[in-house]
């Protein structure tokens, strides 16, 4: 007993013998959540993953304010404009001082391909300001405003920190808007799967027998089918004339239709193993009702596992949506997700002209990595009594 206690302690409280007694008493009264938090905190990568995840969701919340422009603004005269580097300091006669700017563009004509291309013009300077007025929008559909975190001080001159696409739309703004869609579809899809998984997994684990067998066969069947072709088949069946919002929900439902199997397995497995645990048995023997046993003893002990599994299934959803939209079978403009943006990079010619179109892939990578690390840490911490 004493050994396991010492192992679950946060590192800074372990060594000094003097505080041992005090620590021991705090360990023995620490709640399950406290123990989990201590254990989670020890996991550096998970902490970092958690912070990044929170940041990404914060971005998703303040999309309109954070993006310099909006993904719907088309400027045909800025086709494939390359990214402009943001300079914070400006060289003046008295030395360098704080005055953010970007260089403007000039047009060059490629004599061989007879193509117009934009290049950065070191001569031109576009002033950049923070909290500038720009594109008007409605924050969360409530306040009308045109305040943006960063942007060109002159509304007439657009800036492209990450370059522009084929239609002269700002990639950075599109990516920021895409954060909301990609991250929320992951969350929403996971909650739908969670609902299906809890329901069917719970039924399976609770009733056992034939029902369990049947549901298990269905799960095995769904898992044995290659998902992307099936998703493609289902997504292609969504009518093209649906409004964007309905497509969004349609895609989410299709994703969770297959995603629930993993969660159902976790729920069922937990349920079955918990039913035979000693502490559940002793709660029963103490005369606790079935409902109390489930609610007070079983749910808290598998809730943490469920949260961990939920976190670990979000990346799968995000990747699936990205793949579908990339193939043109998922979301479509005017809804922008990272996958929709990557669709622009589908053929090698556009990637060769505008390699910055691959940048949304980086966003996918960061989000998926962060969620994976977070989920891994949560899973480890979910069992505070285990090592």
């Amino acid at each position, binding site marked *: 007993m*004493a*050994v396991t206690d*010492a*192992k679950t*302690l946060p*590192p800074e409280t*372990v*060594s000094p*013998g003097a505080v*041992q007694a005090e620590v021991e008493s705090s360990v023995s009264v620490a709640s399950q959540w406290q123990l989990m938090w201590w254990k989670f905190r020890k996991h550096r990568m998970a902490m970092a993953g958690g912070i990044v995840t929170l940041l990404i969701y914060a971005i998703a919340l303040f999309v309109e304010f954070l993006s310099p422009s909006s993904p719907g603004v088309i400027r045909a005269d800025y086709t494939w404009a390359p990214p402009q580097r943001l300079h914070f300091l400006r060289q003046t006669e008295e030395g360098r001082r704080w005055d953010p700017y970007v260089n403007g563009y000039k047009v060059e004509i490629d004599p061989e391909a007879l193509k117009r291309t934009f290049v950065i013009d070191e001569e031109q300077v576009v002033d950049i300001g923070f909290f500038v007025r720009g594109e008007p929008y409605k924050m969360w559909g409530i306040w009308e405003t045109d305040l943006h975190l960063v942007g060109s001080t002159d509304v007439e001159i657009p800036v492209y920190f990450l370059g522009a696409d084929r239609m002269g739309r700002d990639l950075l703004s599109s990516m920021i808007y895409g954060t909301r869609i990609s991250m929320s579809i992951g969350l929403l899809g996971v909650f739908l799967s969670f609902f299906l998984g809890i329901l069917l997994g719970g039924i399976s684990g609770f009733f056992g027998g034939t029902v369990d067998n049947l549901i298990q066969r269905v799960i095995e069947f769904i898992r044995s089918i290659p998902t992307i072709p099936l998703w493609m088949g289902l997504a292609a069946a969504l009518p093209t004339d649906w409004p964007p919002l309905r497509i969004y929900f349609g895609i989410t439902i299709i994703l969770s239709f297959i995603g629930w199997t993993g969660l159902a397995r976790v729920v069922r497995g937990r349920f079955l193993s918990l039913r035979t645990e000693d502490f559940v048995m002793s709660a029963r023997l103490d005369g606790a009702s079935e409902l109390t046993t489930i609610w007070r003893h079983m749910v808290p002990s598998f809730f943490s596992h469920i949260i961990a599994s939920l976190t670990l299934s979000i990346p799968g959803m995000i990747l699936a949506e990205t793949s579908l939209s990339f193939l043109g079978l998922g979301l479509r403009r005017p809804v922008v997700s990272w996958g929709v943006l990557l669709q622009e990079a589908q053929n090698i010619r556009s990637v060769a002209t505008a390699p910055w179109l691959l940048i949304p892939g980086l966003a996918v990578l960061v989000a998926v990595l962060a969620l994976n690390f977070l989920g891994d840490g949560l899973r480890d911490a979910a069992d505070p009594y285990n090592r």
Partner: protein
Amino acid sequence: MESPALIEIKNLKTHFFLDEGTVQAVNGVDFSIHQHKTLCVVGESGCGKSVTARSILQIVDQPGRIVEGEILFHRPSRSDNGSETTETIDLAALNPRGREIRAIRGQDISMIFQEPMTSLSPIHTVGNQVTEAIKLHTDMLDDEAKEHSIELLRRVGIPRPEERFDTYPFELSGGMRQRVMIAMALSCNPALLIADEPTTAVDVTTQAQILELLEELQDEFGMAIMLITHDLGVVAEMADDVVVMYLGQVAERGDVDSIFHDPKHPYTQSLLKSIPRLGVSRNRQRLDSIRGMVPDPYNRPTGCMFGPRCDHFMPGRCDAINPPAIPLGPGREVHCLLYEEE
């Protein structure tokens, strides 16, 4: 007559280096094992008895390692003219992955474990696992090794050994598996058999059979046995000599009669008081238990390890001095300041 020593352990220290700190699992242990005799090592779980045994074979799990001390093995070698000579090897100084210790493992010293369920590989046949040591240490051919293994299986009381040879461990009962383990351990006629709680995981009837088998085999093969147990009943039945361990140190050692009839160390005394006796007292009495708990291995007491739980605790001495070995007779020692000569 005292038979010559086979193993002499001198000031053995085996420590585990964990992130949370160093666990001094074995901390200065001395005792010897004599040829053809049975030595029992007793103590509560976590007192370092298993680690001591594993130190002899140099199979202590990571991150543990022997940090100090000697394990002298007087290896009997039968020379050509039939006379017995011994060569002395310090096992503690050998490289745990080296050739020398590997040649000793399974040939001169072999070991059986607590869990017959998991101590055998689930996906290799019984025959495969029994013949392995024979093929490794002798130059028997496959057929001979198989014949020898079947003979061994028969000797340890496995019915129809020819058929059992090709079965998998999961098809056998717990008792049968432990017999397979014993056959495996005896396959090269070892000088010492280390049995680490061999009967903990089997039921009581099987336990008696296994112990009886070990005694028979000792008569027949003539090996010494180091039996690790926490069961004093087993000790009384099997032991010639006894070592009582507490928190990585020896509390007391001696022959079985003196330990049971004249225990010196307060820990041994309380251990003996805590076993139920049949028919000793008519009126119902509460069993004595040792007060307190085994201390946290990261936070060992100063002075005598048993001090905080001892009824004869002497403040100022017991918490200051870690008691040295106090000799009481041939092969008999106690680590307790009560017996210190002024």
